[in-house]
């Protein structure tokens, strides 16, 4: 219900010509959106979850041939996802990328059991299956970078079928390489969406190898100097 009182996730889709800055552990990469296409997946069934239990394995949202639904199949695209979950009390936990807990507070390994699963989750009250989806569920993915999910059933009745719904916008893009433009986008007043890939603590996820071949290391270092108010 909380999400319904807030703005729709659809207001967060990017338009062609807008800019997107993604933070990796090595620095920021700034993209300009060239075009977009909607997609969705509803439902994605996670199956039954017993009372007080979680999924035995983290799910990476794959099809029967182990292809990742949430990841672009080629480097030319960025995917922008929001998700919801049902039943309303089902708690969804995210790792981005797999094994790296997002939303943690204290411990190095976040708990997802009845005894310690009160931290860093989004449940169906916060992000309802039928939408609108919570801004906390926002994920940008690119080739070779995808999230993983687990679910905790905190109630004393079994959940016969926990389902997730994903709404996605697929973007084509170009990489912004002009240093003055990058600086004005990162710390100026220009319209840009900034997003940390994964988590800030201890660090964002690593830049994919294919992207390092498109973005010079010196440009990544320049973005760090801009953010550290040196440049």
């Amino acid at each position, binding site marked *: *219900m909380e999400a319904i009182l807030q703005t729709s996730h659809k207001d967060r889709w990017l338009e062609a010509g807008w800019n997107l800055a993604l933070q990796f552990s090595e620095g920021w990469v700034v993209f300009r959106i060239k075009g977009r296409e909607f997609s969705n997946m509803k439902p994605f069934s996670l199956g039954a979850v017993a*009372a007080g239990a979680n999924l035995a394995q983290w799910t990476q949202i794959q099809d029967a041939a182990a292809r990742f639904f949430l990841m672009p199949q080629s480097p030319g695209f960025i995917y922008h996802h929001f998700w919801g979950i*049902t*039943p*309303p*009390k089902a708690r969804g936990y995210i790792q981005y990328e797999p094994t790296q807990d997002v939303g943690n507070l204290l411990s190095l390994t976040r708990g997802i059991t*009845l005894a310690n699963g*009160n931290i860093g989750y989004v449940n*169906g*009250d916060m992000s*309802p*299956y039928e939408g609108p989806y919570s801004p906390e569920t926002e994920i940008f993915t690119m080739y070779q970078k995808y999230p993983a999910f687990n679910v905790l059933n*905190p*109630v*004393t*009745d079994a959940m016969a079928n926990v389902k997730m719904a994903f709404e996605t916008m697929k973007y084509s893009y170009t990489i912004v390489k002009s240093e003055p433009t990058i600086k004005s986008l990162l710390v100026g007043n220009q319209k840009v969406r900034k997003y940390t890939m994964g988590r800030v603590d201890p660090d964002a996820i690593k830049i994919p190898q294919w992207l390092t071949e498109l973005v010079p290391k010196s440009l990544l270092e320049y973005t760090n100097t801009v953010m550290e108010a040196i440049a």
Partner: protein
Amino acid sequence: MMWKASEIRTLTVPIVAVGAAVVVPGSSLVPMNMRRYILQIEAQNRFAGANILTLSKSELGVVTPLELFSFTLVDDYIPKPDGPIKEDSLPLYIIDGPPTGSVLTSFLVAANSAAGVTNLIVRYVDAD
């Protein structure tokens, strides 16, 4: 509170206990750190005569009567409230679940006054 249709649970169960109250068969424990909001109760007498169904809550070890359903004849039926639950219906009763780490539990209990069965339907939501 606003209820979603997808989170309303229904317990449909015959109550056979007489005199001493027992755990309502099939009713689960109120989850840790949640409350059970009871939105609707329907009761029907299956005993061929007068009968009283006592519905109580056992909340962290303390039993409190909630309601007496008094029947005169077999098949007497008492719905409360009569009609469908709305998304903003006020709960009839609230049962508190246990806090973190407690070994105590909360659940529904019931008993009949006469040597017969009553049918009980309870619609509820477990929520924070």
